[in-house]
């Protein structure tokens, strides 16, 4: 802890980078997974292709993906894109299933009622299906966010910022407090992000707790 207070500026700087590198992919991945999840829920074929593909992508070690990305995309090895793109892939791989399952769990008679009331497809998706899928979707988003916050550290191995830098530097200079600072930062950030999403989820879905 003392390391954090003595090196506050440095700690804040890596926190910022870490936050950016984990949150941006979650947002992009989340937005991408909504139409993909919708598509997977609609068509059996899409589901049969996308789900196994997502599983395979998720099993690729993050370090491998981070190293390969610059080669595939033709960007510089030190570009933040190299962490963002793999993490987007992981987020989509995780969220796709959540979104598809959440949409599949919307009660059939609610959908039939919506159709019978005269909703057009897009409006129905935005105002009925998607809001009802939110609780499960947000649960998936929380998992993806926490997992991203932990994975960003790997980026330090290819020279990118974030708490990972504190691990590599601390290890090389035999500075245990520095390593611990990175660990504390990661855990605190993960807990805060998770709590924030939980709170947002509760605010967005007051109906979900309106039991009898």
């Amino acid at each position, binding site marked *: 802890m003392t390391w954090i207070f003595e090196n506050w500026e440095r700690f804040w700087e890596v926190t910022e980078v870490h936050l950016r590198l984990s949150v941006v992919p979650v947002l992009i991945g989340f937005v991408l997974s909504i139409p993909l999840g919708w598509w997977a829920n609609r068509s059996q074929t899409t589901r049969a292709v996308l789900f196994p593909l997502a599983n395979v992508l998720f099993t690729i070690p993050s370090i491998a993906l981070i190293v390969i990305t610059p080669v595939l995309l033709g960007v510089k090895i030190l570009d933040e894109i190299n962490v963002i793109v793999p993490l987007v892939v992981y987020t989509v791989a995780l969220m796709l299933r959540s979104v598809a399952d959440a949409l599949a769990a919307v*009660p059939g*008679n*609610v959908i*039939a*009622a*919506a*159709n*019978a*009331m*005269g*909703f*057009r497809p897009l*409006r129905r998706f935005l105002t*009925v299906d998607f*809001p*009802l899928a939110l609780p499960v979707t947000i649960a998936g988003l929380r998992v993806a966010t926490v997992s991203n916050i932990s994975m960003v550290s790997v980026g330090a191995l290819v020279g990118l910022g974030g708490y990972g830098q504190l691990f590599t530097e601390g290890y090389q200079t035999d500075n245990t407090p520095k390593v611990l600072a990175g660990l504390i930062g990661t855990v605190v950030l993960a807990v805060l992000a998770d709590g924030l999403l939980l709170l947002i989820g509760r605010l967005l*879905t*007051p*109906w*979900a707790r*309106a*039991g*009898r």
Partner: protein
Amino acid sequence: MPGYAERVKVVGIYIQGGPIGVVVATGGIRRVIEFRAVTKRFEDGTIAVDELDLTVEAGTITVFVGPSGCGKTTSLRMVNRMIDPTSGTILVDGKDVLTVDPPTLRRGIGYVIQQAGLFPHRTVLDNIATVPLLSGWDKRKARTRAAELLEIVGLDANFGKRYPAQLSGGQQQRVGVARALAADPPVLLMDEPFSAVDPVVREDLQNELLRLQAELDKTIVFVTHDIDEALKLGERVAVFQTGGHLAQYARPTELLAAPANDFVASFVGRDRGYRTLTFLHADVPVHPIDTAKLGERITVTDWTLVVDEENRPKGWLSGVDGEVEVREQDLISGGSLYDGTTLRGALDAALSSPSALGVVVDGAGAVTGVVQAGDVIQALAKARAAGEVPK
């Protein structure tokens, strides 16, 4: 409106509770629904509806009844194009539904689904306001209308802010009916709306529907697999047979008296003679009965009816000799009460009473006398002789 007047005569007994405060006018719009040689064949080759020809009269409740897989729900869903027919035409007020784009068509036709199908994430008021909002009403007007409907279906205004999960099944279905009525559609489709609630609540909802219809005068198509519900609600009942055939389309009394074939006969049930009594009104002699109040000392000779301070029945006393004090724990509970309406009620009261005497009550629930099963049978014979029982 001959159909309307007749219905009030036939099932008028169910319309109880008097007029309600809010009146919703349909502006005299009455729609006829016609099925012309309508066939629906699904992709797997099964025929759900086979050459259906049927006219739903304006301003009536028409019930489609039959076992599962008989095509009753498919027929209903073809009216608002949730399913399109393979061949044939469906006309609503003379207009072919296939010429109207489905969302537009559906906003003009009320729909009540099984288990209500309310939107769990919207408050009761917002649920009711769904169709007005879809049709572009402004929010305030839609909300005002929703609040009005909440009252019409008999729910307290404070339900408006609740979520569906905070309501009982019966209350949810009332909201379902309110939601279907919100844009004041002339046609209402009801797809087994009361099948998921318990019998007592179901009866409440059925009576409520009859009360509403007496005021609203909509063209209602109601689907059920329950023949009792069909006979109670329908001015006309269409009995569907497995394979999508229309077996018979008739008034309830005709259906009971003259089933078109063995299928209809077995579907309306072995007790159809008993059900027929529901539609008969005849005078049954009411006999006086000895009554006593709790705490009194009386001499019991035969069955004595114990009543409360307002003269409402509490139970029967028997099996004791000589002078006794009337005590609550000695009472034998009574059967159903007869309110002086149909022969079925009279017979049931007599048959279900431990004393074989059916208790007759007035509008306030006070005892006026008793009826006997034998008298009901005689009244039935008289009604037959007078030609009131259709052959």
